[in-house]
């Protein structure tokens, strides 16, 4: 990509890791790899010292490796390889600071595991080498098959302590893959951990799947599938129970479902009344309300964080641009004026900006529009970029792009400082949607 003072390229295949954890039998899905293409210039030097297991027997997962990988892929940390560690302390009382000053490490992540029946206790500390002080010390408990969640939890705590930003390592990413040739394509709707691991397939079909989006509680997803008689329909899948419901079956488009922030309504695009318009369905009463009426294309509804307005794409002005509309009075206001193609907008959690697909000089990029200053900033350098989705911590966004003719996912920090790619070993990957919630939340059992 571009020349940077710090140009890191990390390529870690975690097949061995994936095999070492308890993999459910039905999961034979290729994982996403992660390649950091740009890290911050002043990455913090951290050592994740191997966590020991105080009981007999090996645990099914190397927690240290997961934490190390999480911190590396965030682009904000440079981790010290185990081979360069002069000592391997498990808690702060065993630390000799000079061992770490010699290798210029600023922080240590220390810990050990203790099995207690079916449960595993994870003791960990974040240690500041220069101040010689403990910044965080926690104990969490989980089952043996939650070790990966526990590792992501540690990464989140470390990340937040050192950057002031909530970590997103415990979140998940949903995406669509397409493989095969033009005649026989296989589409899959997958969900993976934010580090590309633990991939599971929600739906596999020979007809297109698209527009997958999360309910705000992270327990349900909505998507469009063409599986029934090759016609589009909107479905909601409950990830906890596995139950699935067909929500729409109208003639024409059934497209772009988006849950309201309270999860009670679903915005969508239907063309049953002539042209594509935005509708809002109340999920409890099943009352459908049409909220745009225009002969042009209205699509890609997204809710504002307060749930009071919808932003959407419309070509009512001749070219696709972003508009907003409060649900109380449906007064439409145009938001974008720069460029002749702005689409698929979503709003930052604080309402200060829009993330969207923006075309300039014929090339599609992801851009951010500062709504207070009216300034548009292009965030990506790749081409054919689409489907941006913001991480729940608001600091990163993931999007779909192309590399060497293949659809891949890539991520960029909102400030543009960190970039990484997530190529899959199988097929084209597209339409990422970052989960709104953590997969598993732990409560520390003691200070």
């Amino acid at each position, binding site marked *: 990509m571009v020349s940077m003072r710090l140009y890191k390229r990390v390529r870690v295949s975690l097949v061995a890791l994936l095999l070492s954890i308890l993999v459910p039998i039905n999961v034979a899905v290729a994982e996403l790899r992660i390649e950091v293409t740009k890290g911050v210039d002043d990455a913090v030097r951290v050592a994740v010292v191997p966590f020991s297991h105080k009981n007999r027997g090996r645990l099914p997962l190397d927690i240290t490796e997961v934490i190390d990988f999480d911190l590396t892929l965030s682009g904000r940390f440079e981790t010290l390889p185990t081979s360069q560690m002069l000592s391997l302390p498990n808690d702060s009382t065993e630390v000799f600071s000079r061992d770490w000053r010699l290798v210029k490490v600023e922080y240590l992540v220390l810990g050990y595991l203790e099995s207690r029946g079916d449960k595993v206790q994870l003791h960990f500390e974040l240690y500041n080498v220069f101040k010689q002080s403990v910044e965080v010390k926690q104990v969490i408990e989980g089952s043996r098959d939650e070790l990966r969640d526990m590792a992501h939890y540690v990464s989140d705590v470390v990340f937040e302590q050192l950057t002031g930003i909530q970590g997103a390592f415990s979140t998940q990413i949903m995406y669509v893959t397409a493989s095969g*040739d*033009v*005649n026989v*394509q296989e589409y899959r709707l997958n969900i993976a951990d934010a580090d590309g691991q633990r991939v599971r397939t929600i739906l596999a079909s020979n007809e*297109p799947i*698209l*527009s997958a989006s999360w309910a705000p509680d992270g327990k349900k997803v909505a998507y469009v599938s*063409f599986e029934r008689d*090759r*016609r*589009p329909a909107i479905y909601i899948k409950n990830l906890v129970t596995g139950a699935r419901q067909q929500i729409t079956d109208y*003639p*024409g*488009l059934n*497209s*772009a479902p988006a849950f309201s922030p309270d999860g009670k309504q679903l915005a969508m*695009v239907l*063309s049953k009344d002539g042209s*594509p318009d935005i509708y809002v369905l109340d999920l409890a009463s099943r009352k459908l309300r049409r909220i745009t009426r225009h002969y042009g*294309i209205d*699509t*890609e509804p997204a809710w504002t964080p307060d749930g009071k307005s919808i932003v959407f*794409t419309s070509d009512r002005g001749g070219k*696709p641009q972003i508009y907003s509309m409060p649900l109380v009075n449906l007064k439409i206001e145009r938001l974008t004026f720069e460029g002749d*193609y702005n*689409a*698929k907008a979503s709003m930052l959690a604080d309402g200060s900006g829009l993330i969207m*697909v923006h*075309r300039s000089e014929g090339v*599609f990029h992801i851009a951010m529009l500062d709504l207070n200053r009216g300034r548009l900033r292009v965030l990506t350098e790749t081409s*054919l970029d*689409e*489907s941006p989705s913001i991480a729940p911590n608001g600091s990163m966004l993931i999007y779909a792009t*192309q590399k*060497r*003719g*293949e659809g891949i996912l890539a991520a960029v920090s909102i400030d543009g400082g960190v970039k990484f790619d997530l190529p899959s070993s199988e097929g084209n990957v*597209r*339409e990422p949607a970052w989960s709104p919630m953590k997969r598993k939340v732990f409560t520390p059992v003691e200070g």
Partner: protein
Amino acid sequence: MGITKIRNILAVSLTALLLVGCASDETVDETDMGPDSGSMTTGEENMAPAEETIVQPKKPMIDSSTNRITIFDLGDAETLTGVFYFDFDQAIVKRSGHVELDKHASALMSERTLRVRLEGHADERGTREYNLALGERRANAIRAYLVAQGVSRSQIEVISYGEEKPEVMGTGESNWARNRRVEFSYR
């Protein structure tokens, strides 16, 4: 990707060879006029069904594997072009396709039980949902043309696949031009 493409090309050429083989004693096909001509006849033969004598001669025939129709005019069989191409970001039916569309219209009007699905497509540029809308707009434009010729709306279903089902993989205008299309699928 490269391998897939080569495999596709091979598959297409093999199919073409087979078809040429079958149709060798028939009249020569129309030449391939390319995607921009608004009319494509690649890989088609003038199929004269074996049971022609027992079927009513004027009735259009549907090929259930390709979902295309063959019409019969004064004893000559003609399989109609099932694909119509569009310009970038446009949903205007090209004049070059009118003659072929008129044949579809006549067939649909002569046989009111015929049903056709117009499948709209877009190239990969731009967002997926917007491209779904664009594909639908193209299919609607073809439907409007047919209805203007006298075809009943109830015979036509419009579906858009947006950029999800390209005719050819790959980027670049020559591929994109072939993906911006409406396909006729008879049933």
